[in-house]
């Protein structure tokens, strides 16, 4: 039996510590991991729990992230609760196995501490790795601060392990900005946390020898499409479970989560749509814009996959001008998040103006002032009735102003 861990009602934890505490409280059976900045402390913290008897499960320190996710797949198919953590290049190395984990419908929880992808090498936070996982068939939830990194990690087990979902879940937090920023975190007691998450009820358990199963069969053109469609539907159908789990979590914690978090959107004329810590920084900016008489609001997907197409549309359809912020180098296109939000808005009657800002790459600071400038652009667009800037711009970039594409409207 694991030793009792002393917790205060109010802790000061960084995002990494918060995530590792959630794994301890969920009584993970196997954690297989390989350290990489900035998610290393999640693995180290967990190692400290192991060393001091705070966990009963197995801790497997593998030789690469690819092996980490591979061991997680083997462990998860063997019927217990499994979690790990990674970032950036490690995430990229895992990608092959991410698809295999979701294809096999294994409810592994992966804490992704977002970090830029090389080259050039950079250890700080942007969303390149998060985007790299966006077609991998995992549920992706996004924390904007340390408290949420903890809360969502607990929710992740309950969502993924639900029999009508049975999908792996990523919980994202911003590298350094969340992972290494200590702030007030209000944890559940160990008992409340475990009661909330509950015991895992295995499906297709490789260690149940009364019913041997084959995992990872090959499907060629006569079967593959059907399997992938079924998997996609499971991901799309996870929405009510996610909402139920969020509702249950509110009951035990008092903290309310929604698939899309809207801030001061009731009467908003202009909006920023963002991910990660930028969401909260933009909220500060929105407040300041309102002091200037500009009706600004912020919309953010809490759940990035399944993409909340409907909720995004509902949140933004009555706004005049929207800025979608992509914290990932778009690689020869509009930002991926921009494209997804735009697609949702194209189906509305109002069709707000939508522009794209690339920002914060490699951890470049995104200040309240930057968000206020973006709101000001949106106000100008709203007043003009058309986009007054390039459709894709760069915020916080040194050198001559960089932008792409002009509007054909107005």
């Amino acid at each position: 039996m694991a030793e009792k861990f002393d917790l205060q009602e109010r802790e000061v934890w960084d995002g990494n510590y918060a995530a590792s505490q959630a794994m301890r409280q969920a009584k993970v059976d196997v954690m297989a991991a390989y350290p990489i900045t900035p998610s290393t402390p999640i693995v180290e913290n967990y190692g400290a729990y192991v060393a001091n008897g705070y966990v009963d499960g197995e801790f497997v320190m593998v030789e690469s992230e690819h092996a980490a996710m591979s061991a997680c797949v083997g462990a998860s198919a063997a019927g217990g609760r499994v979690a790990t953590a990674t970032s950036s290049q490690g995430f990229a190395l895992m990608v092959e196995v991410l698809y295999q984990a979701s294809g096999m419908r294994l409810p592994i929880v992966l804490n992704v501490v977002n970090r830029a992808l090389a080259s050039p090498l950079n250890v700080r936070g942007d969303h390149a790795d998060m985007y790299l996982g966006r077609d991998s068939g995992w549920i992706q939830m996004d924390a904007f601060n340390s408290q949420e990194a903890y809360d969502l990690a607990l929710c992740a087990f309950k969502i993924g392990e639900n029999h009508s979902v049975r999908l792996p879940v990523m919980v994202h937090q911003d590298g350094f900005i969340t992972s290494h920023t200590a702030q007030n975190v209000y944890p559940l007691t160990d008992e409340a946390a475990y009661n909330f998450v509950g015991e895992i009820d295995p499906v297709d358990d490789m260690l149940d020898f009364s019913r041997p199963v084959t995992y990872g069969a090959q499907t060629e053109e006569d079967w593959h499409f059907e399997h992938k469609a079924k998997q996609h539907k499971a991901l799309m159908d996870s929405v009510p479970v996610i909402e139920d789990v969020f509702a249950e979590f509110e009951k035990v914690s008092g903290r309310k989560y929604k698939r899309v978090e809207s801030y001061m959107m009731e009467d908003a004329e202009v909006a920023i749509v963002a991910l990660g810590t930028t969401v909260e920084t933009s909220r500060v900016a929105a407040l300041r814009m309102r002091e200037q008489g500009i009706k600004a609001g912020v919309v953010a997907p809490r759940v990035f996959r399944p993409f909340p197409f409907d909720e995004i549309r509902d949140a933004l359809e009555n706004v005049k001008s929207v800025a979608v912020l992509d914290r990932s180098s778009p690689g020869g296109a509009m930002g991926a998040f921009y494209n997804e939000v735009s697609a949702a808005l194209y189906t509305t009657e109002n069709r707000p103006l939508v522009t794209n800002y690339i920002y914060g790459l490699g951890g470049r600071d995104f200040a309240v002032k930057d968000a206020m400038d973006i709101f000001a652009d949106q106000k100008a667009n709203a007043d003009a009735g058309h986009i007054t800037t390039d459709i894709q711009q760069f915020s916080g970039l040194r050198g001559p102003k960089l932008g792409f594409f002009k509007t054909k409207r107005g």
Partner: protein
Amino acid sequence: MQDLKLCAQDKRGIHELEAGKDLIGWDEVTQGSVLPSFEGDASNVAHLKQEERCYSDFNSYTATVASWRVKKPVFNIDVCIDCQNCWVWCPDTSIISRDKQMLGIDYDHCKGCEVCVEVCPTNPKSLLMFAEQEDLETALSQWPEKKKKEK
């Protein structure tokens, strides 16, 4: 053996492997493409002979690769010494051996590789290849005599 459910027998060779079977839709394929090998409780499977097991439709035991063969091995029980060479080296689990006795060929699973004939030590061999369409009686009637050792 009487009270065991003999469901394996009626499933033998009902699926032509390449033909695929019942190309069902996305709503009916198994979750995660996971395939259970048996129906019901299979805890004891290592202690059951194949004909005593409840194979699921997904088990390749229920499928056949008979059409792969051009020639087939024929077994002559009169010459066999039950050495089990053919059993141990058959790559297709197609030698039916029970209670230390060689009983015959599983023609649903035999691909006609001829390894069993090669490894048969008897003189004449107790397994020989014949044309696929040859019937058993004709084949046995053509069985060669014991070869004399060349001096």
